[in-house]
């Protein structure tokens, strides 16, 4: 469980500026270690550098300073790029801009085809990935006729068909309705439970981050908080200063605390929150 799969050391990155302009660091000195099998949520307001960070994990972007090591491979090594991308899959925000084919199963087959996997094995992987996301029944459908959530599930299957050991999700639910959002989160849980995959989830939704076992908060290209959700979310004032919200349950307890009721802020779900309140008031009755 303690094996490090992703090691980021003092990572600095900036986009090459136009002439006459000075470069602004998008990431400045980020260091992070991600352990095998862990579920890490990365939070941060727009422009905090979280998507840029994610794109370093599979060599879509290369560090301008510092280094990123994935499964022992330096992302700067060009001959390892394909192997790195196979082992660290990435799911993006807009499913429409990830799907490459007019047929669901051909889209899922795209990555294994690129990797030169033999045909019978591609068929096996496609079927398995589609069953995993619950889209097997749609394998011969046209993606543009599916709902947003279904499209995103197809996109996830397309990544799973590579058999990655780690999957980075870059705001996968931002364009989905509540049902689609739930489906994607269920797939993430299943991915960890059944495959033991390492999951990195970039998100704006606190109720999604709550399900992670580690929360990393970014601001202005730096990591400003890092810890278990139970440690990070009670820091309500700091989070709000960074332009982030906290889970509704924490918010409720915090507001009550402001009004002089001494309650712990560690309740991350409605159930936990109910328990905290019940414990306190049941005694009084």
């Amino acid at each position, binding site marked *: 469980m303690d094996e490090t799969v992703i090691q980021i050391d003092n990572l600095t990155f900036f986009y090459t500026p136009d002439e006459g302009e000075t470069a602004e660091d998008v990431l400045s000195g980020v260091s992070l270690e991600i352990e095998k099998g862990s579920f890490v949520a990365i939070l941060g307001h727009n422009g905090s550098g979280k998507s840029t960070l994610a*794109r370093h994990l599979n060599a879509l972007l290369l560090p301008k300073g510092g280094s990123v090591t994935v499964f022992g491979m330096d992302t700067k090594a060009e001959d390892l790029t*394909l192997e790195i991308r*196979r082992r660290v*899959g990435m799911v*993006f925000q807009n499913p*429409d*801009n990830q799907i490459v084919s007019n047929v669901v199963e051909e889209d899922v087959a795209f990555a294994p085809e*690129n990797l030169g996997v033999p045909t019978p094995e591609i068929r096996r992987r496609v079927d398995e990935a589609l069953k995993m996301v619950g889209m097997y029944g749609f394998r011969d459908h046209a993606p543009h006729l599916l709902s947003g959530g279904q499209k995103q599930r197809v996109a996830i299957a397309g990544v799973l068909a*590579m058999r990655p050991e780690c999957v980075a999700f870059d705001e996968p639910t931002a364009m989905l309705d509540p049902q689609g959002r739930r489906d994607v989160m269920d797939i993430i849980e299943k991915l960890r439970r059944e495959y033991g995959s390492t999951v990195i989830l970039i998100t704006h939704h606190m109720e999604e981050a709550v399900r992670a076992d580690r929360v990393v908060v970014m601001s202005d290209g730096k990591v400003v908080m890092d810890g278990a959700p139970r440690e990070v979310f009670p820091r309500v004032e700091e989070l709000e200063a960074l332009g982030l919200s906290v889970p509704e349950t924490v918010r409720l307890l915090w507001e009550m605390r402001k009004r002089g009721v001494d309650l712990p802020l560690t309740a991350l779900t409605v159930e936990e929150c109910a328990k905290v309140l019940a414990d306190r008031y049941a005694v009084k009755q």
Partner: protein
Amino acid sequence: MLKDVTLGQYFPGTTVVHRLDPRTKILLVVLYIVALFCAKTWLAYLLVGVCLAAAIAAARIRLSAMLKGLKPLIFIVLLTGLLNLFYGRGEPIARFWIFKITREGIENAVFMVLRIVMLVMGTFMLTYTTSPIMLTYGLELLMKPLKVLKVPVHELAMMMSMALRLIPTLIEETDKIISAQKARGAEFDTGNLIQKAKAMLPILIPLFLSSFRRADELATAMEARCYHGGEGRTRLNVLHMAARDVLALCLGAALVAAVVVLSKFGL
């Protein structure tokens, strides 16, 4: 409103014609066109026509679908017919003002009209019975020998399938932009032709911008899924030439031979 546009005009099915290898079908269409242009006699046209009818029947394509496809071409067909009608040489059978109609003229006109109609119907048979993906794949395989001449065959095929993939997405997008511009008071169906063309600008510019953005994101997503060109790529669906493909190609070659012989002897 734009959603009903069926592009590629593919009618899914499981008939023999549908199951033929796309390469076979592309080659058959080429042979068919050669035969059509070699045909110079009634009997030859009849032969080609019978083959076309047999193919349509075997693919269970409704005649109405075929005729619908011909609709946009009515003007060209009629114009060609009329021009040929009046430009014939030989003994005039009827004349009025500066026009004269000859026996040869009538024959030419009928042949030309038949040729265009049959040409279009024949090529429709290809797109009606082959999915765009299979068509692209077939083309890629057929053009493979051109790689020796440094023609980027795989890249061309990939671009074509990407274009096909993005058509429905961009149509949806256009629909949204039109609604958005209408909501802000844009008018698209008033004024003369130039005004109408100008009114298209507020649609085209956002559409252009967003397709660039889309292309960029799609390219990133493709890279993330290990796309690195055509080298060492395998396929989920591999094409195999079956006995029926060989048979179909032989029939196609026989058709060309028969038409050439018939025309040679002037039958």
